[in-house]
């Protein structure tokens, strides 16, 4: 055994080096843009340039006077709040039933509830608009929320089903054999155990709703403008630094929310 002079395993090193290098490039590729937008928003000048010409918070101060944008942000928050509430309260029992039943209908419901994730959301948004007009109605906030529920509920279902599959059935049987009712078992045993899954899914649903463009594009109008549509139009028409400042605010809030979700719901492990 040539133990003293083991030849360096160049092949192993080359693979590790290649993959580590690609990962490093990818991380810059993934994180860089968010950093750059924050730095750009701190510019003292009128132009969107990187590196910024001088540092100031003037564009953040300008946000305090941007009434239209604030209104849009508020509408987005209300819509995302209701969407998340509905997704969690409707999605959790549905996931429970799909998980427990091995019948065909359970598989079919699973497929139906997951399909908005694969179908082009913009086509669904247009379909919803056509439907509302055919009923003789006009788009409004409740319709917008229902549309968001359809495209956001798959997130709650997916994480809740994943959490359920980790569940120890013996615990449920024990609870039932000790005389607990179905509801009692759910509230005292199942829910605490799958809570992190439901929480992570609700967080994803909230972010997806707050960020939704394809459905809001058709179901929101000038009165009910939501933030992503407002920003999209701003960028399409005139690029100004205020957009960068809003982006900075959104990036920082997202980061904080993600850290909270990671701490309390184990976000990264729930998403796998």
């Amino acid at each position, binding site marked *: 055994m040539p133990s003293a002079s083991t030849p360096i395993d160049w092949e192993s090193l080359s693979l590790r080096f290649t993959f580590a290098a690609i990962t490093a490039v990818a991380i810059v*590729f993934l994180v860089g843009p968010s950093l750059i937008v924050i730095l750009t928003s701190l510019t003292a000048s009128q132009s969107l340039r990187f590196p910024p010409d001088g540092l100031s918070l003037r564009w953040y101060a300008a946000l305090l006077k941007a009434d239209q944008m604030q209104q849009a942000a508020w509408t987005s928050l209300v819509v995302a709040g209701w969407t998340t509430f509905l997704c969690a309260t409707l999605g959790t029992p549905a996931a429970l039933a799909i998980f427990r039943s091995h019948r065909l209908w359970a598989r079919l419901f699973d497929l*139906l509830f997951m399909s908005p994730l694969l*179908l082009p959301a913009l086509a669904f948004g247009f379909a919803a*608009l056509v439907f509302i007009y*055919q009923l003789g109605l006009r788009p409004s906030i409740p319709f917008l929320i229902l549309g968001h529920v359809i495209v956001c509920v798959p997130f709650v279902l997916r994480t809740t089903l994943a959490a359920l599959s980790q569940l120890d059935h013996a615990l449920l049987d024990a609870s039932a054999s000790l005389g607990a009712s179905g509801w009692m078992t759910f509230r005292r045993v199942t829910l605490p155990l799958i809570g992190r899954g439901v929480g992570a899914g609700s967080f994803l649903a909230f972010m997806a709703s707050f960020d939704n463009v394809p459905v809001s594009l058709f179901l929101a109008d000038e009165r009910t403008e939501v933030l992503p549509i407002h920003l999209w139009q701003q960028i399409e028409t005139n690029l100004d630094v205020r957009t*960068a400042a809003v982006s900075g605010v959104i990036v920082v809030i*997202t980061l904080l929310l993600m850290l909270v979700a990671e701490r309390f719901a184990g976000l990264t492990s729930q998403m796998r």
Partner: protein
Amino acid sequence: MRDSDLRLVLPLGAIFAVCFAAPLAVLIALSFASDTTMRGLTLDHYVRFFTDPFNYSILWNTLLLGVKATLLCLLFAYPIAWIANRARARWQAVLLFLVILPIMTSVVVRTFSWIVILGRQGLLNQVAMGLGLTAEPLRLLFTEVGVVMVLAQVQMPLMVLPILTVMSKTDPNLADASRALGAGEWRTLWRVTLPLSLPGVIAGCILTYSASVTAFVTQTLIGGARLVYMPLHIYQQAIGANNWPFAAAISIIFMVAVLCVVALLNLLIRMTPANAER
């Protein structure tokens, strides 16, 4: 079957029936109608789409855009998943957090930051010109290269997560056995790790593909008004031209086309070595 189980699905099922199935049914009906009031029965809109090169080339370009973005995404995502799978728990969490960060950040914001980077006076052009790689600013914004790059970044987590899930469930002894039998690292990757992780790769491709073809914000802001893909085409016909029946027909065509690609990829999962043995 327990009745209570069915009762638990019904609320969401009812919402899906009214807010998802019914609108799609109306959309299909409208696509065969001669005007917005749903009168008449005609195939005109479909015939118009498939006989006009402008229309069907948009569909083709959109489907191809998805393939390009998915492949670029895979090129980066596979090594990330491989590294994350071997990393210690703490590093794995950090790596995953960085990967998930972009998909959580608003897509408008993510796309906007790329405009700052890709523009004529953007960071990338400043660096390229500073290094003397190019005398003229490169045109990156409003080109398909730009759209593909941004889509790959935006959808990366959708590719990394399924691959990592499958990799972490694969018995590490298999790769060890391959090396013990004398196969090098590259050969082990190519003959053992990659085939075993194929279900994850294809699942990732399905998610990335269906997200890329329908990524309206990225396509319109990075592609501009001259690069028209299906989502913008539908939007223009519906809101700009107010031609609802035609917009309905192209929505249906687009949905069916995307579902066909997804179904094809799903079929591939069943044929992968990991599943073929079962």
